[in-house]
Structure formats: C-alpha cells, structure tokens
C-alpha cells in the first residue's frame, strides 16, 4: 500500500497489481455487506416473483411469468402504474426546481438564515406524522383553506374543485405533500452551492454578469453532479412513494391516488400474495432501471465533473 505512490518508473509487478486493484480494497466492506444483507433478500424476492408464494399456504409452485402477465392484464395494476408515472413526472421536476430556487436564495446573505433553513427543513422532519394527515385533509377539503383562498382571490368567481373526492384532482394533493417536503434536496443543494469557488463569481461580476446569468452560467453547471444525484434518487423515491397516499387518501377517491407501492404493500401484507407483490416490485425495479439508464446516458451532455481529465 504505502509504496504504491512511489514514482511510476520504479514499479514492481506487485506494485502494479496493487495500483490496479487497490480500489477494490476499499470496497471490501460494501461487497461483504451486499453479499450478506442484500443478495439474499433480493434473490429471494426475485424467485418469489416467479412463484405463487404465500407464506401461509403450503405448496409453492413455480408459475413462470404468470404473475408478470397477470399484472399487465389487471386493470387495477395498470392504472396504478400510470398514476405512479404521472406522480413521478409531476413531483420530481417541481421538487428539484423548488429546492434549488430556495437554496439559491438562502445562499445569499440573509438575516436569520439559520432560522429559515430550519423552518424549511421542518416538513421533512415531520415525515409521515399524524398531524400532517389531519391538516392536509383540512386544507384540501371542499370548504377548506385552499378553496377559501381561491374564492377570496377571485372574489367568489371561482369555486375551487372538490380536491378530495374528484379523481381528477386528488393526485395533486399527494404531489403537493411531496413537493412540500423538499428539505433534503434543499440541504444537498446548499452544501453543493457552498462548494462553488467564490473566485468564479468574482470574475463574473467583473465581467459584468448579472445575478441570473451567474446563476445559469456558473452556479448550475458547477452543481450539476448534485442536481444529477437528486434527480436519480428522487425518481427512485417517487416510484417507491408509499407514505403520502397511505396517510392521506388511502388510494382513493376511485383509486386515483393508488400508487403502485400501495398495491405492493397490499399484496404482500394484506393478501399475503408474495408472488404478485414481488412481481410488481420487480416491474418497478425495471422501470426505475430504465429511467436511470436514460439519465446516466444523458449525463455526458449536461453534467460537469471537476475530477474529469
């Protein structure tokens, strides 16, 4: 190890071997962790997805792709898939833009900045608290806060929709909950913004670039790795979102907020149909994989890494 950084000219074959593989040395804990803690449950669930596994019924038989085929022929499931896509495509961009916007403002010299940061992080701390369930319904109820504001702003001209009972609007309720909990993304953006070297801004100011131009030509490019990270993880989390619909709408009205994870949960722990639950989980797995691959292919075009040579 120690000698691996000696001048390259004097390298023995052993040192070359060390040079080549020393990265793996740092991955040993992860590899062990993966093999011990992840590989088994993952393999198990993949296997279940090809069976009619039910922990409380004797005799598990291999059913091949039957679960997957049934899934795509079950209206409830295909509908949930579409809703999940909608949910992800609404929440991911909005949450990222909002988090970045607020982080950018907070990055200026602001009085009481600590207080503001904490306040903005509070929704993420509250998580799936019962208080949120109560409040959310009160805000979106037909005579609730939101519609009252809508009426006031439009001088009574617009009534406001029945958010909680109209299948066309209900998804927005849980979308809003997710966007509201933008704290973690904001924190990461803040950390990234602090990493942008101040001299870049100074140079830009001398060149006469305004605040907004600096934002798009300096700030954004410099933090693209974190934007990319947030994008990937937010896609991943949006597709697995469970808490929002679970505590607020329970999938209703008319199934309009039934995200796929709600069905996975129902199959796994209410109907004990582990085969179908696993199949749905792996369908989601494949979907998120594809989206991630697309994201990774695109990152060459827009993500800037300082460590690249």
């Amino acid at each position, binding site marked *: 190890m120690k000698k691996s*950084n000696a001048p390259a000219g004097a390298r023995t074959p052993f040192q070359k071997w060390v040079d080549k593989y020393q990265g793996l040395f740092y991955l040993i804990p992860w590899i062990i962790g993966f093999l011990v803690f992840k590989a088994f449950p993952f393999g198990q669930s993949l296997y279940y997805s090809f069976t009619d596994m039910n922990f409380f019924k004797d005799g598990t038989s291999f059913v091949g792709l039957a679960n997957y085929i049934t899934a795509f022929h079950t209206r409830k499931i295909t509908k949930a898939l579409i809703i999940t896509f909608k949910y992800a495509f609404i929440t991911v961009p909005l949450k990222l833009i909002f988090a970045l916007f607020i982080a950018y403002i907070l990055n200026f010299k602001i009085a009481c900045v600590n207080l*503001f940061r904490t306040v903005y992080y509070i*929704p993420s701390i509250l998580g799936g608290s019962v208080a949120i369930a109560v409040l959310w319904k009160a805000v979106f109820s037909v005579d609730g806060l939101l519609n009252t504001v809508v009426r006031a702003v439009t001088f009574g001209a617009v009534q406001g929709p029945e958010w909680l009972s109209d299948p066309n609007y209900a998804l927005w309720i849980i979308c809003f909950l997710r966007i509201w909990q933008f704290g973690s993304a904001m924190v990461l953006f803040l950390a990234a913004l602090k*990493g942008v070297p101040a001299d870049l801004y100074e140079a830009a100011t001398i060149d006469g670039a305004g605040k907004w131009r600096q934002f798009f030509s300096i700030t954004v490019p410099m933090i693209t790795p974190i934007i990319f990270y947030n994008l990937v993880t937010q896609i991943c989390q949006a597709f697995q979102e469970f808490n929002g619909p679970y505590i607020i709408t329970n999938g209703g009205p008319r199934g309009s907020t039934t995200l796929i994870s709600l069905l996975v949960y129902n199959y796994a722990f209410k109907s004990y149909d582990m085969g179908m639950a696993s199949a749905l989980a792996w369908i989601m797995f494949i979907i998120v994989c594809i989206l991630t691959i697309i994201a990774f292919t695109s990152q060459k075009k827009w993500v800037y890494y300082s460590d690249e040579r």
Partner: protein
Amino acid sequence: MGMKASNKIATFFKYFVLILVGVIMIYPLLWMISATFKDNSEIFAGISLWIKKPTLDGYRNALNNFGGSINILQAMLNTYSYVLPKVICTVVSACIAAYGFGRFDFPGRKLLFNIMLATLFLPQVVLNVPQYLLYNKFGWVDSPFYLAIWVHCAFATETYFVYQLVQFMRNVPRDLDEAAAIDGCSSFQTLYKVIVPMLGPALVSCALFQFMWSCNDFMGPLLYVSTPGKYPMSLFVKLSMDGDTGFAWNKILALSLISILPQLIVFFCAQDQFVEGISAGAVKG
C-alpha cells in the same frame, strides 16, 4: 438612487418569498403545538391555531410509563442508543466505499457501481420478510443491542449515502490527490487528509439525514424490538393509538412534538457545519 430602489425591491421580494414559503412550511408544526393543548373534538374541528379550551392532559398523559417498563426518557435513550452507532457506521462505511468507487479505476468498477445503484430500486416492502428471516437466523431479532437495526450500516448498505458521497467527491479536483501523492501520502492517507476534509459538508449532511431518518423509522423497530423496556421513541409515540376504542390525540401529538424536538435542535445546530466553514477552511489549509 434608482439602483438602490431596485435593490430594495429585490430585497423585499426575497424576504417576502422566504417568509411566505416559511409560513406554509412551519404552519403544521405550529398547529401541532396548539393541538397538543386541545381535546379531540377541537382538534378535528378545524385548522386554526386558537385554543378554545386549553388542557394540559396531553402532556400529563405523555408521562405515562406503561407499567413501569418504559417511559418517555427511557424511550429517548433507547432511540439514540441505536441511532448513534447507525449514523457513525453509515458515514464511515459510506465514505470508504465512495472513495473506492470515486477515485480508482479497476476492472469491474462500472459493474459493481451499477449493482450498488440497483439496490436502490427495489421497494423495501418485499424485502421485509426475507430480511426478517435472515436476521432471525443471525439471532438478531429482539437483540438487546438492536443489532438488526444498525449492524448492516457498517457495511455501506445505505446506498443513498454512498452514491451521494461519490457525487460530491467528483467535484473534488484530482489535482489535490496527486499533490498529496507527490507529498508521499498513501491512498489511505489521501482519503483522510485530503478527501474527508474536502467532503466535510457532504459528510455532515449524510450524518444529518441518517440521523433524521433513523429517528423517524417506525417499521424497523416494530419488527425487531419486542421488549417494551427497549422501545424507542417512534414506537413509544404510537403506543396508545388504538383505533378500536379511540385515543386522546393531544397525547399522541404531544409525544410526537417532544420526539422531534431533538431533531429540530440538532438540525439547527448542525447546519453551520455543512454550509459554512469546513470546506473553505480545507481549501486554505
């Protein structure tokens, strides 16, 4: 003069947005505080902060100690007795793994990285039972040291954090590593003398997130802790929520409030660490 006026407008606009958004963000917490002094019928009657008939029952009942086996103080202690090892293990192991992925080229790196990322994509729900069976085999279910809850974190299984650190690391120029190498640092010395200081803010945010998430986690402790004396806050808060016969909401909300106070304080105090100071200091040093 015009310049000044537009600056003033900009400042006003900035604060207007910040405060407006801030109110939306903090209102639920304020409501929660006021609701802890209300009774059931008032809690569901509306979302006003005004308390018509203040009562302290919520807080009085929050001190209930469930037959002497568990009380709020013990539950707090229990929570931190696994959250702290979890946070430390996560940060250390994730940092090491991220270093391996982020700074070295070796055959199979891409494949391993993709496998790691892919472990994010499967919903936890279907993994619960296989994991439970596994931990049961290890004898970790209801372990007095909460082994099932935190040990895996020592092996960089928290992929979010590994990936997060990899991304942050990619913004640390390699020149610094090379400079360190020329100074005669081994790769391990480079990690803790160069990379770790540069990653300071990212490491703190890792620790912070893991802290928050672990404190809030309910399903893990429910599955793996059975001895009441070992219950953490997340279980304790919900102990009285009996849907069959009903319960006092003010107590639940009071407990929830108490349980998030440490998180609020930690966030408030820690934020300077991840947004100021460290990275600047590192560059200078």
